[in-house]
């Protein structure tokens, strides 16, 4: 077993943020818990949930996960790690393991105590390719784990792992009651501030407060009542009429309108980044200079305005500001510039006919994608590229998107606020078994840049990030345009105490009525 040595900086960080975190995580924006009142919070959502498995991590379940479950650690909105179910995490000096100390005053909703043995059941599920679902790829760095005591456990890694990648893993692990492990399709098994009350399929989900919750004075609310509205406009009307207190996961355009009407709009750090995905295995995109021209052909400001009502930020890299590789200078350097694009197009050596011989795949079910695709179509026309849109619906679109059946397409990518190599969990950015490019990867420089990020420590870290950014725009197989909101919150002014989750999950435990 690796000899562990406490990293002083990390320990201090954990201790400091546990205090600071009370302000950031525990009591949200401006009001203290004592000032807020309980009651029933009526929340409008636009999609029904699929199951209670936190490892599925499906967007439609975002309103439930952080209310039913707790993470081992949390991130502040700025991306700083803070204690949660794990009070301490000590990374070995050689970065090949992390030792956890767990809280000893936590029980699952069934009454089962939370301890290291219970945590191993969650780790086993996460490490199983069948059962681990979306957490499985993050667990790929884990070699094994050992229980060091009732409330202590060590996770070993397959190689030295950068600190941020380790905290990402801990933040992504939400312990599940071992007894509920096989019934997560229909029942929850968490330690969270709320417990499942009632569910009416396709209509509503009600959560009730957990009387034995381990965080003092939380939750403030007695009940969370989620009602499903099939139309975003209907949810907006319900908020305006006072039928609900909050909309979670609504559209940016309605949010802007409601903000202008006096409602509060809360934008979390867990944005998605819209990316113009290019299938570089198909002509004319197998021409590198032709692809690079697209760095300048994205009218990012117009895309943000048209598609997302201006909620978000323009970006030329697939990172949110909380990401350590975030570099704002790229946005300026690769701003919309038809002349520069034309220079690169001319240098590509392609004829006008060859340049226009492809279609832009469009998700017809998504209004924003349809609108921003038309923006790009217009920009390309200005540069002399005359293309058509290939609008497809539902499963037909998803199939083309995930199997590479396209020349180019817009698609959001997630995990942009965490460790940079986490971007490789998105299909277009995968370094191996990439569903669009196949194997071997046609952009070895990118694969090497990701590997370098994964294996850099100390003073080598920033150069590795810089190299990755340079490679991303040079290879130009994915052109980020803007960040946009997921899990957007529009709330009545009578609410306060919101906690902004790093993944934009809805956290109800600190919310209360003024």
């Amino acid at each position, binding site marked *: 077993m690796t000899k562990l040595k406490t990293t002083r900086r990390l320990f201090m960080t954990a201790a400091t943020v546990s205090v600071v975190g009370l302000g950031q995580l525990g009591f949200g924006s401006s009001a203290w818990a004592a000032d807020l009142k309980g009651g029933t919070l009526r929340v409008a959502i636009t999609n029904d949930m699929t199951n209670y498995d936190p490892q599925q991590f499906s967007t439609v379940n975002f309103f439930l996960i952080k209310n039913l479950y707790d993470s081992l650690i949390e991130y502040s909105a700025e991306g700083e790690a803070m204690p949660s179910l794990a009070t301490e995490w000590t990374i070995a000096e050689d970065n090949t393991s992390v030792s956890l100390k767990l809280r000893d005053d936590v029980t699952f909703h069934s009454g089962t105590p939370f301890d290291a043995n219970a945590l191993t059941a969650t780790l086993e599920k996460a490490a199983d390719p069948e059962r681990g679902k979306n957490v499985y790829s993050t667990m790929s760095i884990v070699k094994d784990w050992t229980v060091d005591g009732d409330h202590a456990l060590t996770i070993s890694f397959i190689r030295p792992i950068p600190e941020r990648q380790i905290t990402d893993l801990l933040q992504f692990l939400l312990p599940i009651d071992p007894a509920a492990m096989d019934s997560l399709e229909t029942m929850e098994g968490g330690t969270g501030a709320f417990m499942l009350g009632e569910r009416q399929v396709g209509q509503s989900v009600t959560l009730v407060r957990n009387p034995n919750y381990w965080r003092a004075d939380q939750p403030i609310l007695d009940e969370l009542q989620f009602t499903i509205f099939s139309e975003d406009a209907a949810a907006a009307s319900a908020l305006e009429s006072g039928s609900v207190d909050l909309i979670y996961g609504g559209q940016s355009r309605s949010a802007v309108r409601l903000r202008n009407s006096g409602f509060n709009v809360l934008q979390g750090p867990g944005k998605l980044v819209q990316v113009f995905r290019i299938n570089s295995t198909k002509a004319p995109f197998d021409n590198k200079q032709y692809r690079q021209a697209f760095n300048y052909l994205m009218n990012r400001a117009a895309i943000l305005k048209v598609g997302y009502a201006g909620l978000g930020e323009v970006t030329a890299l697939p990172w949110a500001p909380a990401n350590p590789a975030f570099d704002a200078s790229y946005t300026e350097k690769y701003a919309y510039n038809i002349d520069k694009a034309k220079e690169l197009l001319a240098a590509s050596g392609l004829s006008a006919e060859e340049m226009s011989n492809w279609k832009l795949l*469009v998700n017809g079910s998504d209004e924003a994608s349809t609108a921003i695709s038309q*923006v790009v179509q*217009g920009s390309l026309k200005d540069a002399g590229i005359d293309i058509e849109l290939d609008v497809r619906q539902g499963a037909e679109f998803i199939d083309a998107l995930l199997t590479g059946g396209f020349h180019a397409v817009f698609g959001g990518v997630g995990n942009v606020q965490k460790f940079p190599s986490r971007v490789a969990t998105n299909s277009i950015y995968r370094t191996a078994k990439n569903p669009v490019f196949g194997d071997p990867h046609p952009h070895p420089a990118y694969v090497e840049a990701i590997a370098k990020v994964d294996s850099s420590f100390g003073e080598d870290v920033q150069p590795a990030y810089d190299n990755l950014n340079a490679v991303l725009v040079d290879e130009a197989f994915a052109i980020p345009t803007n960040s946009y909101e997921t899990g957007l919150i529009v709330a009545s002014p009578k609410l306060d105490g919101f906690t902004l989750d790093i993944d934009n999950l809805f956290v109800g435990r600190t919310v209360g009525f003024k």
Partner: protein
Amino acid sequence: MNSLRFMLRTIRGLMARPGPALSLLYLTVVVLAAALAEVLPIDPFSQDFVMMLEGPSAAHWFGADELGRDILARVIYGARTSLVTAAGAVAIAGAIGIPMGLVAGFFGGWRDAVLMRIVDVMMALPAILFAMALIAVFGRSQGAALLAVGLTGVPGFARIVRAQVLTLRRRDFVVAVEAFGGTSGYNMFRTILPNSWSQILVQVVVLSSVAILLEAALAFLGVGVPPPTPSWGEMLRTGKSYLYEAPYYAVLPGIALTLTILSFDTIGRGLARILENPRDVAAAGGPT
């Protein structure tokens, strides 16, 4: 020459009634605008992000859409989409449905049974679902929308022509042609068909309004003509999302669509009245 005289007298008959006359006038304007759109100083594709969702102004009489495109220009070009779809759909439906009805009604027996069961199956399927299924197979394009709408019109033509053939089949002038050695084909296409044109004409007008509505419905559901081609249904679909910010967005395409369908229906009803009234038929100089 007879046909031209018949057409002119039919139009004159329509113009004598205020409803059909106004409708005819409106449709003439729409057809002219659609045909001459390229001559007009308008561009339905030009994007201006500064003007997006701006209300009516001197530059954009009916405002600008979410990409800053001129709504009036898109409505005028949208008329072209609707009319081309209507004309194409009628052509497809007529080209398939009329021969089906002629053969079924003229020969009867197993041919009638087989063809009418096919028609029954087509009629049993809701037109919108049938059209969506066809678009799912052929992909989203103006051609696919036109084909889908056209095929949904086949049963109507087949039924009407068959009924007309059954009425005329034993009439003396048809039997006489047979007695003089006229072939079945000659009898169907040269004897019976010319005497069925009045009913077919009404069906053409009625199907045109149905086709325009169906095309708009498909576009509204997101499976019609793909963007950025202007389409009234697509404009209604997108305008719906901006009802709060730009309530005028969906108004003009909505009015254009409503008036066009209303006009076709009014003309169809007027035609039916004229052609069913023996005095009016005689006045129109049509075949009796």
